[in-house]
């Protein structure tokens, strides 16, 4: 479902991604961990082309992201094409990024109506269902400012899901939350995983990772140090760097 080949990304002189190659199969849940600055967020942002890669290729569901293949050569896609592709890649941010001038329901139905051109009544119906699914059926008309962090993040997840994405990217979704609120968001993510959503989750929630990840991945300084199923990754890491990192956070 997602394929990264030798992805490089540089910001000015700072090389953030130095040759990332990995695949994510449909329905797989990959949890990415690593120290700050390792490039985890940048990797997610490259997958949905919020950042353009400097070298390498990224494919989502077989389609190259950001570039179109024309007669064997790669041509940069227009903004409209990139936007269309992004509509099927859902992203959840550390700081939620809800639209403060819209209610919870408003946030969820805005893109389906204005991007997918869904009719208003259909979008409302789907929106209500989506918010109920994340446990916020009674908060449809609340503004983000009136919701707790955990509630806001759940609205953000509902908002991303409302676009029926093929893939969901989570960038440290619980890092900005009070500890008591983390659980409710992780529950939503767990049920999403159980339903077979393809997910890449950047997180430090090891309990969640152990329970739900099909594969763990450690990144450091722009490269993938190690990857593997959680059982092997946590109990029997192969690389020194992995062992060091795990010892610090477990």
């Amino acid at each position: 479902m997602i394929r990264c080949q030798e992805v490089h990304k540089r910001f000015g002189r700072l090389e953030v991604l130095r040759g990332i190659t990995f695949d994510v199969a449909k329905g797989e849940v990959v949890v990415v961990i690593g120290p700050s600055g390792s490039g985890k967020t940048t990797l997610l942002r490259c997958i949905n082309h919020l950042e353009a890669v400097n070298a390498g290729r990224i494919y989502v569901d077989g389609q190259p992201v950001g570039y179109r293949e024309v007669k064997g050569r790669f041509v940069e896609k227009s903004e409209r094409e990139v936007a269309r592709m992004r509509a099927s890649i859902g992203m959840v941010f550390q700081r939620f990024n809800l639209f403060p001038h819209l209610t919870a329901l408003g946030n969820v139905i805005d893109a389906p109506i204005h991007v997918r051109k869904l009719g208003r009544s259909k979008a409302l119906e789907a929106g209500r269902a989506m918010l109920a699914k994340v446990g916020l059926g009674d908060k449809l008309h609340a503004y983000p400012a009136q919701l707790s962090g955990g509630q806001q993040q759940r609205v953000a997840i509902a908002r991303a899901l409302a676009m029926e994405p093929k893939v969901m990217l989570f960038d440290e979704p619980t890092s900005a939350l009070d500890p008591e609120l983390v659980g409710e968001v992780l529950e939503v993510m767990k049920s999403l995983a159980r339903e077979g959503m393809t997910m890449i989750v950047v997180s430090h929630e090891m309990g969640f990772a152990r329970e739900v990840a099909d594969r763990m991945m450690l990144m450091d300084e722009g490269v993938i140090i190690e990857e593997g199923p959680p059982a092997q990754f946590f109990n029997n890491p192969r690389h020194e760097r992995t062992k060091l990192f795990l010892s610090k956070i477990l």
Partner: protein
Amino acid sequence: MSIPFPSLDFDPEIVWKFLFNSVILEGAQRTIVVAIAAQVLGVVLGLLSALMRMSKNPLLNVPANLYVWFFRGTPLLIQLLFWYNGVPQLFDNPDITRELTSFRVAIFALGVNEGAYMTEIVRAGIESVEAGQMDAAKSLGMTSAKAMRRIILPQALRVIVPPTGNEFIGMLKNSSLAFAIGLMELLSASRSIYVVNFKILELLAVASIWYLVMTTLFSLAQAELESRLAVGVRERPLTLFGRMTEAFGTARARFR
């Protein structure tokens, strides 16, 4: 008014006499119409120019920067005179010249000038919206144009409206410069009376009173509008950063 200034020739009765004079009232009305029209033009130009300035494309940001530099850097009075005298010469056509009335030229010149100042106000408003908003909008499949229209600008308005209100108050007063191109606005109206009866101070007082009435009424309306805009959204989302700044009560937390 001989006490306390014996040499001052000022008769409040004359002020009262001309306060509701029809020529004066017509002038005041024209001032309001020109100010509103010019401000609207200024906001539209300012919005376009701000977006152009923020673009990475030099074909867009260079003309916008030149526009702002030139129209903020030269006196408004000179701009009014230039447009009024210069544009007809471009066409050298009596029919067109006849259409270029003081009224229309004043609105155009005031609007173009205002646009240069509005550019900065709009840009500040747009930049006050967190970068994450554009990220979220794009990740939902919106193009930057759609995101700008639906997500960024509505939020930017909260920061754009208060200074725009101040600009409008300035516009009400700046419109008086259009007397130099023959527009019969409030100042011209009072001049047209005092050149006949020589009661300069009294008629200027009449004009000043009306300017004060207009600017004061508008200030009150603006205060009301601002408090209404703040009702729907009380504060920014309570992110960790937001909570920290709230706790320390910095200007950042209060700034909308």
